[in-house]
């Protein structure tokens, strides 16, 4: 019987099959950040199990609240920092070298095709963009991952989404994934892997693939996944070149992971994006999406560009194109958080930071910042934020605040207008 890519990855990592379709798999990487890991560390210490399975396979970053905003977040950083030191975890990224986990770990080449990865963070699915099985887990799973290098999952069943059509102007990966979540619903993919396939995905950059996989969990999915190809190889080449003679050879080797022609899918969905319009969310659930034009004119107080969804260099470039020579509305606070130091310095070299600052944006250090409503732009009661992040839950960016999710282009255009609006207007205006 044919297998999907996820089934192949599971089979090659099988450790135990304790019951039914539960598979305990071996992990190639365990990622850690300072919000969910300290509790795991404290618990391991309390149990007398303060050990790590392999310090080289554990990667850690302080990213959610950095620099620390108060004594409690300072303590979270301290616990993680001391633990990394104590266990000789060399890939630990502290302030000055830190960035949003799901942006910095791929950048460092920590995820290869065929890998299995867990992290105590629901958007770990982002790393599926590299043809890996990567899933968010809770603290206890993280503890066991740290201790034993294993995790238990249901054997994967996959929904394949064939994305086809010509990407219309002003439409980006974010609009594509919002349209898919709108179609599947917030639990349409629960306990499933979403495999993004088809010509649109083949043509996407790694950044765009990460944006899609990042939000798979918003449809309930265990993970998103894309097939590794030449684009993947190019992105990772610096980190994989010792294992392969040429790029072509690497791409060929990764084809072993490709689904068999007779692989069995839970379902296959054809998703044509030729007529897709820029989208925005309107409620407190990420599947509540509408075309921007139906939300045109909704007043906003803050614009946030950043996060593991849309804080990468491509995202900043697109937004900068729209902001160039413009000023954001007096009634809007604009915040840009480049996702990593590399993105930050690239944006600096390309003049992108200056464009943002000239337009009136505040540029923060790389961090999750306002995305989770803990620091760097928390909303006040009744305020509205146009945001490139991935979650619009009630209270997500601050109690009583409203979050509208959208692409960096739509967010930049809305910052200028002071209300939700279509970026095409701005591109059109200048052309």
């Amino acid at each position, binding site marked *: 019987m044919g297998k999907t890519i996820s089934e192949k990855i599971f089979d090659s990592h099988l*450790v*135990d099959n*304790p*019951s*039914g379709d*539960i598979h*305990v798999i071996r992990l190639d990487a365990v990622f850690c950040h300072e*919000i*969910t890991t*300290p*509790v795991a560390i*404290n*618990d*391991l210490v309390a*149990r007398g*199990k303060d050990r790590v399975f392999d310090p080289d396979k554990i990667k850690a970053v302080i990213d959610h*609240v950095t620099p620390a905003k*108060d004594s*409690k*977040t300072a*303590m*979270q950083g301290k*616990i993680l920092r001391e633990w990394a030191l104590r266990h000789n975890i060399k890939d630990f990224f502290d302030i000055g070298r830190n960035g949003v986990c799901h942006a910095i770990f791929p950048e460092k080449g920590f995820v290869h095709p065929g890998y299995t990865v867990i992290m*105590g*963070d*629901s958007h*770990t699915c982002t790393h599926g963009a590299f043809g890996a099985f990567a899933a*968010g*887990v*809770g*603290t*206890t*799973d993280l*503890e*066991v991952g740290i*201790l*034993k290098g*294993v995790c*238990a999952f*249901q054997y994967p069943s996959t929904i394949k989404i064939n994305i086809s059509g010509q990407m219309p102007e002003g439409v980006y990966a974010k609009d594509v994934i919002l349209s898919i979540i709108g179609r599947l619903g*917030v*639990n349409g993919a*629960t*306990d499933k892997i979403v495999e993004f396939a088809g010509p649109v995905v083949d043509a996407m950059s790694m950044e765009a693939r990460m944006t899609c996989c990042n939000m798979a969990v918003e449809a*309930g999915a*265990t993970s998103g996944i894309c097939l590794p190809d030449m684009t993947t190889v190019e992105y990772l080449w610096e980190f994989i070149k010792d294992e392969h003679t040429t790029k072509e050879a690497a791409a060929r080797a990764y084809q072993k992971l490709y689904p068999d022609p007779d692989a069995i899918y839970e379902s296959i969905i054809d998703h044509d994006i030729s007529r897709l319009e820029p989208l925005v969310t309107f409620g*407190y*659930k990420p599947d509540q999406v509408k075309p921007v034009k139906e939300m045109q004119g909704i007043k906003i107080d803050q614009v946030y560009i950043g996060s593991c969804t849309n804080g990468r260099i491509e995202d900043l470039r697109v937004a900068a194109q729209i902001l160039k020579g413009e000023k954001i509305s007096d009634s809007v606070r604009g915040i840009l958080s480049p996702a990593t130091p590399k993105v930050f310095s690239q944006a600096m070299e390309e003049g992108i930071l200056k464009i943002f600052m000239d337009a009136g944006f505040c540029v923060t250090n790389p961090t999750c910042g306002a995305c*989770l*409503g*803990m620091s760097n732009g928390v909303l006040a009661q009744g305020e509205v934020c146009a945001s490139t992040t991935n*979650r619009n*839950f*009630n*209270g*997500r960016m601050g*109690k009583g605040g409203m979050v509208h999710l959208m692409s960096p282009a739509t967010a930049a255009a809305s910052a200028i207008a002071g209300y939700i609006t279509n970026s095409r207007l701005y591109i059109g205006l200048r052309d």
Partner: protein
Amino acid sequence: MKNFSGKVLFLDRSDINTDEIIPAKYLSEISKEALKPYLLEDLRLDGFSPNQDIEGKSVIITRENFGCGSSREHAPWALETNGINLIIAESFARIFRQNMFNCGMMAVALPAGAIDRIFKQFSGKDTFLETDLQKNIFIIKAGGLTEEISFNISDFQRALVDAGGWVEYADSRY
């Protein structure tokens, strides 16, 4: 093993997410006990008041996709510190369900029809639920009304409940 019986809190809504169960601003807490006062603080639900309705409850019965959103295990912990170790729903988000069993707690799915019937018969009443883990049944009681409902959990989930969670289970085996 944890206690899976007691008074029932009915939450008649789908898609109750982890931000509603425990808002992100409390994630800087590093002890479970500190989360106790904030359970369901941001839940938007008519007639529900966290200050009045949580005290004394041990079981939650709710609708679809409970626990969606973030991976934070703070959600089960906030429940646990309030003495709530059992959630019964039509369905759960994967990470939340796994987190519950990993902590030796239970997240049990029942068919939509059964949940609907329970809501019709019992919500709004002073309801008590008893869990019989030998026979795999819930016994639900309010006033003179009693209903028995059978449920299923996998052998693996049961092993986690018996072991008191995944850390002990995994460390002794792998």
